[in-house]
C-alpha cells in the first residue's frame, strides 16, 4: 500500500492540470466538483493509509514511497520520495480534510467570479504543494512544497490582480517568504555539508554526532525559514496584507495549512532542535513575542479579516512556543485544532462578507445575529474554541501549551504567565469582534442592508462540519486520561532522542489543573470585558482609546513596522540601486570607461591626423627626421 502514497498529492495535481488547462471549457459546476473531488480522493487515500499505519507497531509506523531520483551529482542525491508516518498522517489529514471543506465552501463563495476555474486550479495546486511539503522524505522535497505553497499563496493573494494593492500584497508575501527561504536554503546547504545527505532519517539519526554549534546554526537557519512561512517576528508583515485574497484562501492557506508549515518543519526536525537549547529558546521567545504583539494589534483592528489574520499570527506564536519548549506533539495538536477553528472563523467571516457585499469593516456591521443565523452560530463556536473554553477544541490544545510552557525542562514561569495573558487578550479581541459584528445596532450601509442573506448550503454545511470539529476536536488528546494524539505522534519525535530529556522537570497534576482553571478564568474575563465594552457600554472603547492615545495609535498602526521596513530597507535599497549602482556605476563608470576609451581614441586620432599636414616638404622633413633618428640610434644605441 505504501507504494500508493504518491496518489495523495497526485489527485490535486491532476485537478490543477485539468482545471488549469481546460477550465475555460468547463462549467462552474464541473470545475467545483472536480476540484473538490480531487481533494476528497486524496483525503480518502490518506485515511486508508492512516488506518494501515495504525495497524503497525508504534515504532515501525513509517511508509516510504520512492518514485525516482530528482537530481544526483557527485555524492549528492535527492529522490522524489514520500514519507508517511504519524506526523505526516496528521498533517495530510488536516490539509486534505480541512482543504476539502474549504473547496466545497468555495464553490458557493466564488460563484460567478470570472476566475472561477483559475481559482480552483490554484487551490488544487496549493493542496498539491502542501502535500509535497508534509509528505516529502527529504529536505529538498519539503523545500519544493515549501516554495510551492508560497507560490500559490502569491497567486491567490493576488487573485483579484486588477486591484494593485492586492497584487502588491501578493508580491509582498512572496518576497518576504523568500527572505525566510533564504535562511532555509542555507540551512539545507549546511545540512548537506555536515551530514552529506538531505534525507530526514539519515540527517536526524546522525544529529547527535555533530557539534552543538552546527546544530544550533542549522536550527536557527531553518527557523528563519519558519518565521517567513509562519509569519513570525520579524517576517510576519506579509500575513495581514495577505487577507487581500479571497476568503477561502485566507482560511485554507493563511490559517489552516500553509502558515503552519513552519511549525511542521520544526517538529519534523525536532531531533535536531532538542539538541540545541539556544535554538529552542529562540523559537519559544520569538513565538511568545509574536503571539503577544499580534494579539495587541488585533485589539484595535477594524477589519474583520485582519483581526483574524493577527489572531492567526498570534496562535502560530503559541505553536512555536510549544515547539520551543520541546512540546512538539502539543504544537501539532494546537496546529490541528487551530486549523479547525480558524478555518471555521475565516469561512464564517467570509460568509458575513458574502452577506454584506464584501464589506470587511466591522464598524459597518452589527446586529447580524439573527439575519445570518447559521453563520453566527458557527462563528460563536469558533470564538469559544479559540478563547479556550472547555470543552471546545482550543481549550485542550492551548491549555496543554501553557502547561508545557511551564513544566517542560525548556519552559519557564514567564512563558506561562505571558501565554496566559495572551489567552486573555485573545478571548477579548475575538469576542470584541463577535459582539461588534453580530450584536448591537446595525451599522450596515443602507444599500448593503437590503441584500443581507444567509449563504447557500454549499457554504454553510462546511461551516457546520468545521464547527463540529472545533467542538470535539480537542477530545483526541485529553492529558492523563486520553492522550491518544500524543501517543500517536510521540514515536516520531522520540525516535532519535532520549525521552528522558522530556520528562516534566517540575509541576504536578494538581498544579496543571490549577493552571487550567486560571486560564479558563482569564478567558472568561476576556469575553466578559468584551461584552461590557462592546455590547453594554459602547462608549467605553473610545474613552479608553483616547485616554491612552499614544498606545492606541501605536497599536492601531501595527507598531509602524511596515512603515519602518519601508523606510529603512525597501526605499533606501531601491534608491541606492537606482541612483548609485545603475545610474552612477553602470552608466557613468563602466560604460563611461568603455565609451570614454573610444572617445579618447577618437581625439588622439584627431591630433595625430594633423601630422598629415598636406605640405609635401613636411613629409620630406619627417623622412629626414626619421633618418636622423635612425642615425641617432647608430651613434648612441
Amino acid at each position, binding site marked *: 500500500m505504501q507504494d500508493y502514497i504518491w496518489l495523495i498529492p497526485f489527485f490535486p495535481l491532476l485537478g490543477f492540470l485539468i482545471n488549469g488547462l481546460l477550465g475555460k471549457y468547463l462549467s462552474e459546476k464541473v470545475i467545483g466538483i472536480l476540484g473538490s473531488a480531487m481533494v476528497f480522493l486524496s483525503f480518502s487515500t490518506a485515511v486508508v493509509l492512516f488506518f494501515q499505519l495504525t495497524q503497525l507497531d508504534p515504532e515501525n509506523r513509517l511508509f516510504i514511497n520512492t518514485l525516482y531520483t530528482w537530481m544526483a551529482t557527485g555524492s549528492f542525491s535527492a529522490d522524489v520520495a514520500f514519507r508517511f508516518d504519524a506526523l505526516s498522517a496528521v498533517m495530510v489529514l488536516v490539509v486534505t480534510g480541512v482543504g476539502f471543506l474549504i473547496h466545497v465552501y468555495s464553490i458557493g463563495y466564488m460563484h460567478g467570479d470570472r476566475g472561477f476555474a483559475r481559482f480552483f486550479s490554484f487551490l488544487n495546486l496549493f493542496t498539491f504543494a502542501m502535500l509535497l511539503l508534509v509528505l516529502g522524505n527529504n529536505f529538498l522535497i519539503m523545500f519544493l512544497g515549501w516554495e510551492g505553497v508560497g507560490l500559490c499563496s502569491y497567486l491567490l493573494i493576488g487573485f483579484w490582480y486588477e486591484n494593485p494593492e492586492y497584487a502588491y500584497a501578493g508580491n509582498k508575501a512572496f518576497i518576504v517568504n523568500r527572505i525566510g527561504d533564504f535562511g532555509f536554503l542555507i540551512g539545507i546547504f549546511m545540512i548537506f555539508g555536515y551530514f552529506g545527505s538531505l534525507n530526514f532519517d539519515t540527517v536526524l539519526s546522525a544529529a547527535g554526532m555533530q557539534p552543538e554549534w552546527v546544530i544550533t546554526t542549522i536550527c536557527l537557519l531553518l527557523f528563519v525559514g519558519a518565521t517567513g512561512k509562519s509569519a513570525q517576528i520579524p517576517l510576519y508583515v506579509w500575513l495581514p496584507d495577505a487577507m487581500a485574497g479571497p476568503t477561502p484562501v485566507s482560511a485554507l492557506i493563511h490559517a489552516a495549512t500553509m502558515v503552519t508549515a513552519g511549525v511542521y518543519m520544526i517538529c519534523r526536525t525536532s531531533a535536531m532542535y532538542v539538541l540545541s537549547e539556544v535554538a529552542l529558546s529562540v523559537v519559544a521567545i520569538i513565538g511568545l513575542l509574536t503571539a503577544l504583539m499580534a494579539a495587541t494589534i488585533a485589539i484595535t483592528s477594524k477589519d474583520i479579516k485582519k483581526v483574524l489574520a493577527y489572531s492567526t499570527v498570534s496562535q502560530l506564536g503559541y505553536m512555536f512556543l510549544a515547539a520551543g519548549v520541546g512540546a512538539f506533539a502539543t504544537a501539532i495538536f494546537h496546529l490541528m485544532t487551530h486549523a479547525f477553528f480558524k478555518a471555521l472563523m475565516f469561512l464564517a467571516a467570509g460568509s458575513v462578507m458574502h452577506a454584506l457585499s464584501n464589506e470587511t469593516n466591522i464598524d459597518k456591521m452589527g446586529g447580524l445575529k439573527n439575519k445570518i443565523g447559521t453563520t453566527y452560530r458557527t462563528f460563536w463556536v469558533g470564538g469559544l474554541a479559540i478563547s479556550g473554553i472547555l470543552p471546545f477544541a482550543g481549550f485542550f490544545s492551548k491549555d496543554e501549551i501553557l502547561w508545557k510552557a511551564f513544566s517542560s525542562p525548556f519552559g519557564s514561569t514567564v512563558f506561562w504567565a505571558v501565554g496566559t495573558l495572551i489567552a486573555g487578550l485573545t478571548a477579548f479581541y475575538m469576542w470584541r469582534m463577535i459582539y461588534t459584528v453580530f450584536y448591537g445596532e446595525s451599522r450596515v450601509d443602507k444599500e448593503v442592508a437590503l441584500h443581507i442573506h444567509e449563504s447557500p448550503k454549499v457554504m454553510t454545511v462546511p461551516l457546520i462540519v468545521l464547527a463540529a470539529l472545533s467542538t470535539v476536536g480537542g477530545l483526541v488528546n485529553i492529558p492523563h486520561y486520553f492522550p491518544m494524539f500524543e501517543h500517536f505522534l510521540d514515536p516520531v519525535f522520540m525516535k532519535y532522542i532520549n525521552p528522558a530529556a522530556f520528562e516534566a522537570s517540575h509541576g504536578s497534576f494538581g498544579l496543571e489543573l490549577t493552571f487550567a482553571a486560571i486560564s479558563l478564568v482569564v478567558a472568561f474575563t476576556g469575553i466578559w470585558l468584551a461584552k461590557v465594552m462592546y455590547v453594554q457600554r459602547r462608549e467605553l472603547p473610545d474613552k479608553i482609546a483616547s485616554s491612552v492615545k499614544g498606545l492606541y495609535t501605536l497599536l492601531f498602526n501595527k507598531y509602524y513596522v511596515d512603515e519602518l521596513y519601508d523606510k529603512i530597507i525597501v526605499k533606501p535599497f531601491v534608491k541606492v540601486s537606482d541612483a548609485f549602482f545603475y545610474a552612477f556605476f553602470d552608466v557613468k563608470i563602466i560604460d563611461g570607461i568603455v565609451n570614454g576609451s573610444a572617445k579618447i581614441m577618437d581625439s588622439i586620432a584627431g591630433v595625430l591626423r594633423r601630422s598629415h599636414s*598636406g*605640405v*609635401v*616638404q613636411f613629409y620630406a622633413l619627417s623622412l629626414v627626421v626619421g633618418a636622423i633618428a635612425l642615425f641617432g640610434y647608430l651613434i648612441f644605441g
Partner: protein
Amino acid sequence: MPIEYYLIVAAILFSIGVLGVLTRRNAIIVFLCIELMLNAVNLTLVAFSNHVQNLDGQVFVFFVMIVAAAEVAVGLALIVAIFRQKETVYVDEINLMKW
C-alpha cells in the same frame, strides 16, 4: 687625395640638397636639389669605385644618371601640368589633400 675628402664633399652636397628640398618653395628648385642629392651619391660612388678598385660603382653611376633623366622628364611634365591647373609652382600651395 684621401677618399675621405671626396666623401665629405659628397656628404655636404647631399646635405645641401636635403636642406634645399626642405626649405625652398619653388618646385623647380626643390627638384634641382633632389638632382643635387643624386649627384652627391654619384660622386660617392665614383670615389668608392676608385677606392675598392672595381668598376661596379661607376657602372652604377650611369644607371643613376639614366634614372635621373627619366625622372626629370616625368617631373618637369608634372610641374608644367600643375602650373597649368593652379598657376603656381610653390610646393606649400599644393596642399588640397591633408589630414
